């Protein structure tokens, strides 16, 4: 798995930051950690446990503290902070930099940026942005669609009918996120986010027709930029020797980046309308999530005395 990183120039663009000083290599400075520090203690001279690879924020408090210091000490403390090789320093609330700040930064070639936003607000959106950008990622061969608000990842061998299914799902009023290649990021311990690679976004390939642009053909309401992956559907060619789940009692999961995602396996046979089956599976999953399990209530009806699920 490639180590994810994010360039400072991307952050400047994403948050519309004002560049007060740049050593001219913002597109080469990589941010590798999602943590952000307000260097209060460091400005007071305490550097134990300091994480020098983090973005540093100067907010109201840090700014006011710097105000109180004498010019000489301020220069010394800033030099010590910049000397650690931090990736950049961001001033929030449009604070004016102290006169020593820019010269000290120039000496160590540390970029100084500025935002109008308040510190806590900016900090939480920056951490959220970094968590998404730096998340572990994988690209998978499959199709990602959104059906009634659920992100459904359809996996299966080439030629099993994933794209055709996606097309019909779109025609039935749902949305396409990615065809053929899905880029998946683990943005938290429980959440997987899927999107399409930029080059092939919202394109779909149907054998016999070729490449189609779903957004052009069916409009913007038929596509989506990204979606959480709630459910996985594995399509496979019908195997006579294999027995398939008839009741829907088995709790099958598919592991993606260490997160077990609820999944089902649907055998593909002649005359099966896959789009309807995928749609039904999505709705059934929603109902289960909300607490109703049709298979369990059937068992309760058949064995009112309390039949055991393990029988099946």
């Amino acid at each position: 798995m490639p180590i994810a990183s994010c360039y400072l120039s991307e952050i400047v663009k994403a948050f519309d930051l004002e560049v007060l000083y740049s050593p001219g290599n913002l597109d080469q400075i990589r941010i590798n950690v999602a943590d952000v520090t307000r260097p209060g203690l460091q400005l007071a001279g305490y550097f134990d446990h300091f994480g020098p690879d983090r973005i540093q924020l100067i907010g109201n408090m840090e700014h006011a503290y710097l105000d109180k210091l004498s010019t000489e000490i301020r220069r010394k403390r800033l030099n010590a902070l910049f000397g650690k090789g931090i990736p950049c320093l961001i001033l929030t609330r449009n604070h004016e930099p102290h006169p020593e700040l820019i010269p000290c930064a120039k000496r160590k070639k540390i970029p100084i940026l500025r935002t109008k936003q308040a510190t806590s607000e900016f900090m939480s959106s920056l951490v959220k942005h970094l968590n998404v950008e730096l998340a572990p990622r994988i690209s998978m061969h499959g199709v990602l669609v959104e059906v009634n608000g659920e992100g459904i990842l359809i996996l299966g061998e080439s030629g099993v009918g994933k794209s055709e299914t996606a097309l019909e799902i779109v025609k039935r009023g749902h949305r396409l996120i990615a065809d053929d290649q899905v880029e998946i990021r683990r943005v938290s311990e429980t959440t997987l986010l899927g999107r399409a690679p930029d080059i092939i976004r919202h394109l779909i390939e149907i054998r016999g027709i070729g490449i189609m642009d779903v957004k052009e053909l069916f409009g913007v309401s038929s596509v989506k930029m990204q979606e959480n992956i709630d459910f996985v559907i594995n399509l496979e060619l019908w195997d006579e020797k294999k027995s398939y789940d008839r009741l829907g009692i088995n709790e099958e999961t598919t592991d993606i980046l260490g997160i077990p995602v609820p999944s089902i396996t649907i055998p593909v046979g002649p005359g099966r309308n896959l789009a309807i089956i995928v749609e039904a599976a999505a709705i059934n999953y929603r109902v289960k999530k909300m607490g109703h399990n049709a298979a369990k209530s059937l068992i309760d009806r058949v064995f009112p005395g309390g039949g055991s699920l393990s029988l099946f």
Partner: protein
Amino acid sequence: MVSRTVIFTCDEALQMKAVAVLIQKASSFKSSIYLSRSGRRANAKSLLGVMSLGIENQTEIEVSADGDDQQAALDSLVECLENPGVL
């Protein structure tokens, strides 16, 4: 599973056609075949997947194949990536 790393060598005019031929070649094998480029992996039988890798002239690509006919598949695809003009 078998794999090999090759450099894709192809002048610009041929690129689209080379990719199309590559996918048809890959689809004729039973094995699952993957192409990887700088950490990104795509199914060699999927047109959009291979396109999304953004393969250009002189790109380093790792081909891997897994299945009954893996060696034949690997040889055929490596040949295809190294000399796309021949086809």
